[in-house]
Protein backbone atom coordinates (compact mmCIF):
# COMPACT_ATOMS: atom_id res chain seq x y z
CA UNK A 1 0.00 0.00 0.00
CA UNK A 2 1.27 3.45 -0.75
CA UNK A 3 -1.25 5.42 1.25
CA UNK A 4 -3.14 5.23 4.54
CA UNK A 5 -6.50 6.44 5.73
CA UNK A 6 -6.61 9.83 7.41
CA UNK A 7 -9.89 9.13 9.18
CA UNK A 8 -8.66 6.27 11.35
CA UNK A 9 -5.11 7.47 12.05
CA UNK A 10 -5.75 9.88 14.94
CA UNK A 11 -4.25 7.39 17.38
CA UNK A 12 -0.83 8.08 15.92
CA UNK A 13 -0.91 11.34 17.91
CA UNK A 14 -1.71 9.38 21.07
CA UNK A 15 1.28 7.12 20.54
CA UNK A 16 3.40 10.20 19.94
CA UNK A 17 2.14 11.78 23.15
CA UNK A 18 2.98 8.58 25.05
CA UNK A 19 6.55 8.74 23.79
CA UNK A 20 6.90 12.38 24.77
CA UNK A 21 5.50 11.79 28.25
CA UNK A 22 7.81 8.77 28.59
CA UNK A 23 10.79 10.99 27.81
CA UNK A 24 9.78 13.84 30.11
CA UNK A 25 12.78 13.61 32.46
CA UNK A 26 15.23 12.85 29.70
CA UNK A 27 14.22 15.89 27.68
CA UNK A 28 14.37 18.17 30.71
CA UNK A 29 17.75 16.83 31.61
CA UNK A 30 19.12 17.65 28.17
CA UNK A 31 17.56 21.11 28.27
CA UNK A 32 19.05 21.67 31.71
CA UNK A 33 22.60 21.34 30.41
CA UNK A 34 22.41 24.46 28.26
CA UNK A 35 18.86 25.73 28.69
CA UNK A 36 16.52 26.10 31.61
CA UNK A 37 15.66 22.46 32.11
CA UNK A 38 11.98 22.56 31.36
CA UNK A 39 11.69 21.14 27.87
CA UNK A 40 10.41 17.74 29.02
CA UNK A 41 8.01 19.34 31.46
CA UNK A 42 6.63 21.71 28.82
CA UNK A 43 6.33 19.01 26.19
CA UNK A 44 4.77 16.40 28.47
CA UNK A 45 2.26 18.95 29.72
CA UNK A 46 1.19 19.97 26.21
CA UNK A 47 1.16 16.53 24.62
CA UNK A 48 -0.41 14.96 27.72
CA UNK A 49 -3.17 17.57 27.76
CA UNK A 50 -3.85 17.06 24.05
CA UNK A 51 -3.93 13.28 24.51
CA UNK A 52 -6.62 13.70 27.17
CA UNK A 53 -8.77 15.52 24.66
CA UNK A 54 -8.12 13.08 21.81
CA UNK A 55 -8.45 9.82 23.69
CA UNK A 56 -11.48 7.64 22.90
CA UNK A 57 -12.86 9.96 20.25
CA UNK A 58 -11.49 8.02 17.20
CA UNK A 59 -10.41 11.19 15.44
CA UNK A 60 -8.80 11.43 12.07
CA UNK A 61 -5.09 12.20 11.96
CA UNK A 62 -5.84 15.75 10.81
CA UNK A 63 -8.35 16.30 13.61
CA UNK A 64 -5.98 14.90 16.23
CA UNK A 65 -3.14 17.08 14.92
CA UNK A 66 -5.41 20.11 14.94
CA UNK A 67 -6.31 19.45 18.57
CA UNK A 68 -2.66 19.04 19.46
CA UNK A 69 -1.69 22.19 17.57
CA UNK A 70 -4.42 24.17 19.31
CA UNK A 71 -3.50 22.97 22.78
CA UNK A 72 0.15 23.79 22.17
CA UNK A 73 -0.61 27.22 20.71
CA UNK A 74 -3.14 28.40 23.27
CA UNK A 75 -2.22 26.64 26.50
CA UNK A 76 1.46 25.88 26.54
CA UNK A 77 3.38 29.03 25.84
CA UNK A 78 7.16 28.89 26.00
CA UNK A 79 8.92 28.39 22.66
CA UNK A 80 7.46 24.96 22.11
CA UNK A 81 3.87 26.14 22.29
CA UNK A 82 4.12 28.33 19.20
CA UNK A 83 6.76 26.27 17.36
CA UNK A 84 5.28 22.79 17.64
CA UNK A 85 1.86 24.43 17.78
CA UNK A 86 2.29 25.95 14.35
CA UNK A 87 3.90 22.76 13.05
CA UNK A 88 0.94 20.59 13.99
CA UNK A 89 -1.56 23.21 12.90
CA UNK A 90 0.10 23.30 9.50
CA UNK A 91 0.24 19.49 9.37
CA UNK A 92 -3.50 19.44 10.12
CA UNK A 93 -4.25 22.09 7.52
CA UNK A 94 -2.53 20.12 4.76
CA UNK A 95 -4.30 16.90 5.74
CA UNK A 96 -7.67 18.57 6.21
CA UNK A 97 -10.20 17.06 3.75
CA UNK A 98 -7.69 14.45 2.54
CA UNK A 99 -9.06 10.93 2.60
CA UNK A 100 -5.94 8.96 1.80
CA UNK A 101 -2.51 10.17 2.77
CA UNK A 102 0.05 9.37 0.10
CA UNK A 103 3.75 10.19 -0.02
CA UNK A 104 3.17 13.50 -1.82
CA UNK A 105 0.64 14.66 0.76
CA UNK A 106 2.85 13.44 3.57
CA UNK A 107 5.80 15.38 2.17
CA UNK A 108 3.67 18.47 1.62
CA UNK A 109 2.52 18.22 5.22
CA UNK A 110 6.09 18.04 6.53
CA UNK A 111 7.22 20.96 4.38
CA UNK A 112 4.33 23.09 5.50
CA UNK A 113 5.14 22.37 9.15
CA UNK A 114 8.78 23.29 8.64
CA UNK A 115 7.79 26.49 6.86
CA UNK A 116 5.52 27.40 9.74
CA UNK A 117 8.31 26.87 12.25
CA UNK A 118 10.74 28.91 10.24
CA UNK A 119 8.21 31.69 9.64
CA UNK A 120 7.95 32.42 13.34
CA UNK A 121 11.29 31.16 14.62
CA UNK A 122 13.71 31.87 11.74
CA UNK A 123 15.99 28.97 12.64
CA UNK A 124 18.13 27.42 9.92
CA UNK A 125 19.90 24.08 9.79
CA UNK A 126 23.03 24.37 11.92
CA UNK A 127 21.53 26.71 14.52
CA UNK A 128 21.19 23.82 17.02
CA UNK A 129 17.41 23.62 17.16
CA UNK A 130 14.69 21.15 16.28
CA UNK A 131 15.13 22.26 12.66
CA UNK A 132 18.34 20.21 12.63
CA UNK A 133 16.23 17.09 13.05
CA UNK A 134 13.21 18.10 11.02
CA UNK A 135 14.78 19.53 7.88
CA UNK A 136 17.14 16.63 6.98
CA UNK A 137 14.38 14.16 7.80
CA UNK A 138 12.13 15.76 5.20
CA UNK A 139 14.95 15.81 2.66
CA UNK A 140 15.71 12.14 3.27
CA UNK A 141 12.07 11.20 2.81
CA UNK A 142 11.75 13.21 -0.41
CA UNK A 143 14.98 11.70 -1.76
CA UNK A 144 13.88 8.15 -0.99
CA UNK A 145 10.52 8.68 -2.71
CA UNK A 146 12.31 10.25 -5.68
CA UNK A 147 14.53 7.13 -5.76
CA UNK A 148 11.40 5.06 -6.15
CA UNK A 149 11.19 3.61 -2.69
CA UNK A 150 7.82 2.76 -1.22
CA UNK A 151 6.08 5.03 1.30
CA UNK A 152 6.81 2.60 4.13
CA UNK A 153 10.44 2.16 3.04
CA UNK A 154 10.97 5.89 2.64
CA UNK A 155 10.02 6.42 6.27
CA UNK A 156 13.17 4.55 7.34
CA UNK A 157 15.62 7.16 5.99
CA UNK A 158 13.29 9.82 7.47
CA UNK A 159 13.75 8.35 10.95
CA UNK A 160 17.46 7.76 10.43
CA UNK A 161 18.02 11.31 9.19
CA UNK A 162 16.06 12.77 12.08
CA UNK A 163 18.28 10.83 14.48
CA UNK A 164 21.44 11.80 12.65
CA UNK A 165 20.25 15.41 12.62
CA UNK A 166 19.57 15.22 16.34
CA UNK A 167 23.04 13.77 16.92
CA UNK A 168 24.60 16.46 14.75
CA UNK A 169 23.45 19.08 17.23
CA UNK A 170 25.91 17.74 19.79
CA UNK A 171 28.84 19.35 18.04
CA UNK A 172 27.08 22.56 17.15
CA UNK A 173 27.31 25.90 18.89
CA UNK A 174 23.80 27.19 19.54
CA UNK A 175 22.85 30.16 17.38
CA UNK A 176 19.27 30.70 18.47
CA UNK A 177 17.07 30.44 21.56
CA UNK A 178 18.06 30.39 25.20
CA UNK A 179 21.24 28.36 24.81
CA UNK A 180 22.67 30.70 22.16
CA UNK A 181 23.88 32.98 24.98
CA UNK A 182 26.35 30.34 26.10
CA UNK A 183 28.45 30.49 22.94
CA UNK A 184 31.14 27.82 22.96
CA UNK A 185 29.81 26.47 26.23
CA UNK A 186 26.76 25.21 24.36
CA UNK A 187 28.88 22.76 22.37
CA UNK A 188 29.08 19.11 23.43
CA UNK A 189 25.49 18.37 24.36
CA UNK A 190 22.42 17.49 22.34
CA UNK A 191 19.75 20.07 21.63
CA UNK A 192 16.57 19.34 23.54
CA UNK A 193 14.20 20.41 20.76
CA UNK A 194 16.03 18.33 18.16
CA UNK A 195 15.73 15.37 20.50
CA UNK A 196 12.00 15.78 20.98
CA UNK A 197 11.57 16.36 17.27
CA UNK A 198 13.29 13.06 16.47
CA UNK A 199 10.93 11.35 18.92
CA UNK A 200 7.91 12.97 17.27
CA UNK A 201 9.07 12.04 13.77
CA UNK A 202 9.80 8.48 14.74
CA UNK A 203 6.35 8.09 16.31
CA UNK A 204 4.79 9.57 13.20
CA UNK A 205 6.79 7.27 10.89
CA UNK A 206 6.08 4.13 12.92
CA UNK A 207 2.40 5.01 13.10
CA UNK A 208 2.22 5.51 9.34
CA UNK A 209 4.16 2.30 8.69
CA UNK A 210 1.80 0.33 10.89
CA UNK A 211 -1.12 1.58 8.84
CA UNK A 212 0.66 1.15 5.50
CA UNK A 213 1.40 -2.51 6.24
CA UNK A 214 -2.21 -3.37 7.04
Amino acid at each position, binding site marked *: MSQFLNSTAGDIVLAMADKIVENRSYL*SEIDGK*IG*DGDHGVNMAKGFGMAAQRIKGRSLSLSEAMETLGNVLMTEIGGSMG*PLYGIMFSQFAEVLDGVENIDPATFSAMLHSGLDGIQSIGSAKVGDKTLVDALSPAIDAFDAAIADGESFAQALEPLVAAAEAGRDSTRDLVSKIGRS*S*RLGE*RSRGVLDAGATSCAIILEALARGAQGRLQN
Partner: protein
Amino acid sequence: MQRFINDPDQVVEDTVKGFVRAHADIVRLADNPRVVVAKTAPVAGKVGVITGGGSGHEPAFIGYTGKNLLDAVAVGELFSSPTAKSFHDAIKAADGGRGVVCLYGNYAGDNMNVKMATKLAAKDGIAVATVVANDDVCSAGPSERDKRRGVAGEIFMWKCGGAKASEGASLEQVRATAQRAIDNCRSVGIGLGPCTLPAVGHPNFSIEPDTMEVGIGHHGEPGVRVEPLKRAAEVARDMCGIVLDDHDLAAGTEVAVLVSGLGATPLNELYILNHTIAEEIEARGLTIHRTYVGNYFTSLEMVGATLTVMALDDELKRLLELEVHSPAMR
Protein backbone atom coordinates in the same frame (compact mmCIF):
# COMPACT_ATOMS: atom_id res chain seq x y z
CA MET B 1 13.66 19.53 47.95
CA GLN B 2 13.21 21.64 51.08
CA ARG B 3 10.53 23.88 49.62
CA PHE B 4 7.08 25.20 50.41
CA ILE B 5 5.09 23.83 47.50
CA ASN B 6 2.05 21.69 46.97
CA ASP B 7 1.94 19.97 43.60
CA PRO B 8 5.09 20.65 41.53
CA ASP B 9 2.85 21.17 38.53
CA GLN B 10 0.68 23.73 40.33
CA VAL B 11 3.40 26.10 41.50
CA VAL B 12 2.31 28.92 39.23
CA GLU B 13 -1.41 28.52 39.95
CA ASP B 14 -0.80 28.51 43.71
CA THR B 15 1.60 31.44 43.54
CA VAL B 16 -0.80 33.59 41.57
CA LYS B 17 -3.70 32.72 43.87
CA GLY B 18 -1.73 33.63 46.98
CA PHE B 19 -0.47 36.79 45.28
CA VAL B 20 -3.92 38.01 44.31
CA ARG B 21 -5.22 37.29 47.81
CA ALA B 22 -2.39 39.25 49.39
CA HIS B 23 -2.76 42.24 47.08
CA ALA B 24 -6.47 42.31 46.34
CA ASP B 25 -6.40 46.06 46.98
CA ILE B 26 -4.11 46.53 43.96
CA VAL B 27 -4.67 43.67 41.53
CA ARG B 28 -7.30 41.29 40.24
CA LEU B 29 -7.32 38.31 37.90
CA ALA B 30 -8.76 38.60 34.41
CA ASP B 31 -11.18 35.90 33.26
CA ASN B 32 -8.02 34.19 32.10
CA PRO B 33 -6.36 33.12 35.38
CA ARG B 34 -2.99 33.61 33.74
CA VAL B 35 -3.50 37.35 33.42
CA VAL B 36 -3.04 39.71 36.40
CA VAL B 37 -4.68 43.11 35.99
CA ALA B 38 -4.31 46.33 37.97
CA LYS B 39 -7.53 47.26 39.73
CA THR B 40 -7.17 50.68 38.12
CA ALA B 41 -7.02 49.19 34.59
CA PRO B 42 -8.10 49.90 31.96
CA VAL B 43 -7.74 53.67 32.27
CA ALA B 44 -9.78 55.34 29.56
CA GLY B 45 -7.65 57.57 27.38
CA LYS B 46 -4.37 56.18 28.75
CA VAL B 47 -2.01 54.00 26.77
CA GLY B 48 -2.12 50.53 28.32
CA VAL B 49 1.21 49.14 29.54
CA ILE B 50 1.68 45.40 29.81
CA THR B 51 4.36 42.80 30.11
CA GLY B 52 4.48 39.05 30.47
CA GLY B 53 7.01 36.35 31.00
CA GLY B 54 7.72 33.04 32.63
CA SER B 55 7.08 32.62 36.35
CA GLY B 56 9.69 31.95 39.01
CA HIS B 57 11.01 35.53 38.98
CA GLU B 58 8.76 36.87 41.70
CA PRO B 59 8.10 39.67 42.44
CA ALA B 60 8.64 40.01 38.65
CA PHE B 61 6.56 40.19 36.62
CA ILE B 62 3.22 40.26 38.46
CA GLY B 63 4.47 42.35 41.38
CA TYR B 64 4.89 45.39 39.18
CA THR B 65 1.18 45.57 38.36
CA GLY B 66 -0.40 48.70 39.72
CA LYS B 67 -1.00 52.41 39.50
CA ASN B 68 1.48 54.25 37.27
CA LEU B 69 3.23 50.98 36.49
CA LEU B 70 1.88 47.96 34.59
CA ASP B 71 -1.80 47.66 33.73
CA ALA B 72 -1.69 43.93 33.09
CA VAL B 73 0.75 41.04 33.12
CA ALA B 74 0.60 37.74 31.23
CA VAL B 75 1.80 34.85 33.39
CA GLY B 76 3.74 31.91 31.98
CA GLU B 77 4.73 28.57 33.43
CA LEU B 78 7.96 28.53 35.45
CA PHE B 79 10.67 29.94 33.16
CA SER B 80 8.40 29.63 30.15
CA SER B 81 6.76 32.31 28.06
CA PRO B 82 3.04 32.92 28.55
CA THR B 83 0.82 31.79 25.73
CA ALA B 84 -0.12 34.10 22.89
CA LYS B 85 -3.64 33.93 24.29
CA SER B 86 -2.52 35.25 27.69
CA PHE B 87 -0.56 38.09 26.09
CA HIS B 88 -3.63 38.83 24.00
CA ASP B 89 -5.90 38.83 27.06
CA ALA B 90 -3.48 41.10 28.91
CA ILE B 91 -3.54 43.51 25.97
CA LYS B 92 -7.34 43.53 26.01
CA ALA B 93 -7.47 44.10 29.78
CA ALA B 94 -5.08 47.04 29.52
CA ASP B 95 -6.63 48.74 26.53
CA GLY B 96 -8.04 52.15 27.37
CA GLY B 97 -8.62 53.13 23.78
CA ARG B 98 -5.23 54.62 22.96
CA GLY B 99 -3.37 51.42 22.25
CA VAL B 100 -1.20 49.15 24.35
CA VAL B 101 2.56 48.90 24.70
CA CYS B 102 4.00 45.49 25.51
CA LEU B 103 7.35 45.79 27.28
CA TYR B 104 8.93 42.35 27.53
CA GLY B 105 12.21 40.46 27.56
CA ASN B 106 14.16 39.06 24.66
CA TYR B 107 13.46 35.33 24.77
CA ALA B 108 12.52 33.15 21.82
CA GLY B 109 9.22 32.09 23.35
CA ASP B 110 8.17 35.57 24.36
CA ASN B 111 9.09 36.95 20.98
CA MET B 112 6.93 34.42 19.22
CA ASN B 113 3.98 34.61 21.57
CA VAL B 114 3.95 38.40 21.62
CA LYS B 115 4.09 38.45 17.84
CA MET B 116 1.07 36.17 17.65
CA ALA B 117 -0.79 38.14 20.32
CA THR B 118 -0.13 41.36 18.48
CA LYS B 119 -1.75 39.90 15.39
CA LEU B 120 -4.76 38.77 17.42
CA ALA B 121 -5.07 42.24 18.99
CA ALA B 122 -4.90 43.87 15.57
CA LYS B 123 -8.02 41.90 14.67
CA ASP B 124 -9.71 43.47 17.72
CA GLY B 125 -8.64 46.88 16.46
CA ILE B 126 -6.12 47.44 19.29
CA ALA B 127 -2.85 49.05 18.24
CA VAL B 128 0.06 47.32 19.96
CA ALA B 129 3.62 48.63 20.13
CA THR B 130 6.41 46.50 21.55
CA VAL B 131 9.76 47.06 23.23
CA VAL B 132 12.10 44.13 23.74
CA ALA B 133 14.47 44.38 26.69
CA ASN B 134 18.03 43.29 26.01
CA ASP B 135 20.05 44.67 28.91
CA ASP B 136 22.05 41.55 29.83
CA VAL B 137 25.61 42.31 28.73
CA CYS B 138 27.10 38.80 28.95
CA SER B 139 24.43 37.17 26.81
CA ALA B 140 25.85 38.50 23.53
CA GLY B 141 28.61 40.79 22.28
CA PRO B 142 28.20 44.54 21.79
CA SER B 143 27.70 44.10 18.03
CA GLU B 144 24.79 41.75 18.71
CA ARG B 145 22.83 43.70 21.26
CA ASP B 146 19.57 42.52 19.74
CA LYS B 147 20.47 38.99 20.81
CA ARG B 148 20.92 39.88 24.45
CA ARG B 149 18.50 38.69 27.12
CA GLY B 150 16.25 41.04 29.00
CA VAL B 151 16.85 40.89 32.75
CA ALA B 152 16.36 43.23 35.70
CA GLY B 153 16.59 46.31 33.48
CA GLU B 154 13.03 45.47 32.54
CA ILE B 155 11.97 46.96 35.86
CA PHE B 156 13.32 50.37 34.84
CA MET B 157 11.69 49.96 31.43
CA TRP B 158 8.33 49.23 33.08
CA LYS B 159 8.74 52.04 35.60
CA CYS B 160 9.55 54.67 32.98
CA GLY B 161 7.08 53.36 30.40
CA GLY B 162 4.31 53.12 32.99
CA ALA B 163 4.97 56.64 34.26
CA LYS B 164 5.09 58.07 30.75
CA ALA B 165 1.73 56.50 29.93
CA SER B 166 0.27 57.93 33.14
CA GLU B 167 1.44 61.36 32.06
CA GLY B 168 -0.91 61.03 29.09
CA ALA B 169 1.65 60.33 26.37
CA SER B 170 0.74 58.71 23.05
CA LEU B 171 1.45 55.10 22.18
CA GLU B 172 4.47 56.09 20.14
CA GLN B 173 5.78 58.34 22.91
CA VAL B 174 5.40 55.63 25.52
CA ARG B 175 7.11 53.13 23.24
CA ALA B 176 9.98 55.51 22.51
CA THR B 177 10.50 56.32 26.19
CA ALA B 178 10.45 52.69 27.27
CA GLN B 179 12.86 51.92 24.46
CA ARG B 180 15.18 54.69 25.62
CA ALA B 181 14.95 53.43 29.20
CA ILE B 182 16.05 49.93 28.26
CA ASP B 183 18.65 51.21 25.79
CA ASN B 184 20.12 53.07 28.76
CA CYS B 185 20.35 49.90 30.88
CA ARG B 186 23.13 47.35 31.21
CA SER B 187 22.96 44.36 33.53
CA VAL B 188 25.04 41.41 34.69
CA GLY B 189 24.26 38.38 36.85
CA ILE B 190 26.52 36.32 39.11
CA GLY B 191 25.36 32.91 40.32
CA LEU B 192 26.62 31.16 43.46
CA GLY B 193 24.03 28.41 43.60
CA PRO B 194 21.60 26.88 41.09
CA CYS B 195 17.85 26.48 41.30
CA THR B 196 15.51 23.56 40.83
CA LEU B 197 12.35 23.47 38.81
CA PRO B 198 10.00 21.62 41.17
CA ALA B 199 8.66 19.44 38.36
CA VAL B 200 12.23 18.42 37.51
CA GLY B 201 13.30 17.87 41.10
CA HIS B 202 17.03 18.49 40.80
CA PRO B 203 19.08 21.51 39.73
CA ASN B 204 19.96 22.06 36.09
CA PHE B 205 23.62 22.30 36.73
CA SER B 206 25.85 22.51 39.75
CA ILE B 207 28.07 25.31 40.90
CA GLU B 208 31.11 23.83 42.58
CA PRO B 209 31.96 25.15 46.04
CA ASP B 210 34.23 28.19 45.84
CA THR B 211 33.32 28.93 42.25
CA MET B 212 30.83 31.31 40.73
CA GLU B 213 29.02 31.54 37.40
CA VAL B 214 29.58 34.87 35.69
CA GLY B 215 26.97 36.16 33.26
CA ILE B 216 24.21 33.96 34.56
CA GLY B 217 20.63 34.40 33.33
CA HIS B 218 17.34 34.48 35.12
CA HIS B 219 16.26 30.95 34.36
CA GLY B 220 18.69 28.67 36.03
CA GLU B 221 20.82 28.68 32.89
CA PRO B 222 24.55 28.41 33.51
CA GLY B 223 26.59 31.58 33.08
CA VAL B 224 29.00 32.31 30.27
CA ARG B 225 32.00 31.34 32.37
CA VAL B 226 32.99 29.80 35.70
CA GLU B 227 35.43 31.64 37.95
CA PRO B 228 36.76 31.13 41.45
CA LEU B 229 34.49 32.76 44.00
CA LYS B 230 36.09 35.97 45.24
CA ARG B 231 35.49 38.37 48.08
CA ALA B 232 32.33 40.42 47.68
CA ALA B 233 34.29 43.58 46.88
CA GLU B 234 36.06 41.90 43.99
CA VAL B 235 32.83 40.39 42.71
CA ALA B 236 31.23 43.84 42.87
CA ARG B 237 34.14 45.35 40.96
CA ASP B 238 33.90 42.64 38.30
CA MET B 239 30.17 43.28 37.95
CA CYS B 240 30.78 47.02 37.56
CA GLY B 241 33.52 46.33 35.03
CA ILE B 242 31.27 44.18 32.85
CA VAL B 243 28.38 46.62 33.00
CA LEU B 244 30.24 49.90 32.74
CA ASP B 245 32.80 48.86 30.13
CA ASP B 246 29.93 47.94 27.87
CA HIS B 247 27.97 51.04 28.82
CA ASP B 248 30.67 53.59 28.16
CA LEU B 249 29.04 56.58 29.86
CA ALA B 250 30.45 60.09 29.91
CA ALA B 251 31.79 61.25 33.28
CA GLY B 252 29.12 63.17 35.13
CA THR B 253 26.29 60.99 33.86
CA GLU B 254 23.65 60.37 36.46
CA VAL B 255 22.62 56.75 36.91
CA ALA B 256 20.08 54.61 38.72
CA VAL B 257 21.47 51.43 40.27
CA LEU B 258 19.55 48.23 40.91
CA VAL B 259 21.15 45.40 42.90
CA SER B 260 18.78 42.46 42.89
CA GLY B 261 19.05 39.13 44.64
CA LEU B 262 18.27 35.99 42.65
CA GLY B 263 16.00 34.51 45.30
CA ALA B 264 18.07 32.90 48.04
CA THR B 265 20.67 35.57 48.67
CA PRO B 266 19.95 37.46 51.86
CA LEU B 267 19.58 41.22 51.76
CA ASN B 268 22.65 41.90 53.88
CA GLU B 269 24.88 40.39 51.19
CA LEU B 270 23.28 42.61 48.58
CA TYR B 271 24.12 45.61 50.73
CA ILE B 272 27.69 44.35 51.06
CA LEU B 273 27.90 44.23 47.26
CA ASN B 274 26.27 47.63 46.97
CA HIS B 275 28.90 49.23 49.14
CA THR B 276 31.66 48.45 46.63
CA ILE B 277 29.40 48.92 43.60
CA ALA B 278 28.65 52.47 44.68
CA GLU B 279 32.35 53.20 45.28
CA GLU B 280 33.24 51.78 41.89
CA ILE B 281 30.54 53.66 39.98
CA GLU B 282 31.55 56.91 41.61
CA ALA B 283 35.22 56.20 40.96
CA ARG B 284 34.32 56.24 37.27
CA GLY B 285 32.98 59.76 37.58
CA LEU B 286 29.32 58.81 37.48
CA THR B 287 26.73 60.16 39.90
CA ILE B 288 24.29 57.80 41.58
CA HIS B 289 20.86 59.37 41.57
CA ARG B 290 19.03 56.51 43.20
CA THR B 291 19.74 52.95 44.35
CA TYR B 292 17.42 49.98 44.65
CA VAL B 293 18.60 46.96 46.64
CA GLY B 294 16.45 43.88 47.16
CA ASN B 295 14.84 40.87 45.57
CA TYR B 296 13.43 42.72 42.57
CA PHE B 297 13.85 40.07 39.87
CA THR B 298 14.68 36.55 40.98
CA SER B 299 15.22 33.08 39.66
CA LEU B 300 13.46 30.71 42.06
CA GLU B 301 15.86 29.85 44.89
CA MET B 302 19.00 30.64 42.96
CA VAL B 303 21.84 32.09 45.04
CA GLY B 304 23.33 35.12 43.34
CA ALA B 305 22.83 38.73 42.41
CA THR B 306 22.40 41.00 39.45
CA LEU B 307 23.52 44.56 38.88
CA THR B 308 21.69 46.94 36.55
CA VAL B 309 22.89 50.46 35.79
CA MET B 310 20.60 52.84 33.91
CA ALA B 311 21.88 56.12 32.53
CA LEU B 312 19.44 58.91 33.31
CA ASP B 313 18.32 62.08 31.64
CA ASP B 314 15.89 64.63 33.03
CA GLU B 315 12.86 62.84 31.69
CA LEU B 316 13.88 59.40 32.93
CA LYS B 317 14.64 60.89 36.36
CA ARG B 318 11.20 62.44 36.49
CA LEU B 319 9.55 59.19 35.42
CA LEU B 320 11.55 57.18 37.95
CA GLU B 321 10.36 59.47 40.72
CA LEU B 322 6.64 59.30 39.91
CA GLU B 323 5.00 57.50 42.81
CA VAL B 324 3.66 54.05 42.09
CA HIS B 325 1.45 51.66 43.98
CA SER B 326 2.24 48.04 43.17
CA PRO B 327 2.99 45.00 45.34
CA ALA B 328 6.71 45.08 44.55
CA MET B 329 7.31 48.81 44.43
CA ARG B 330 5.58 51.66 46.19
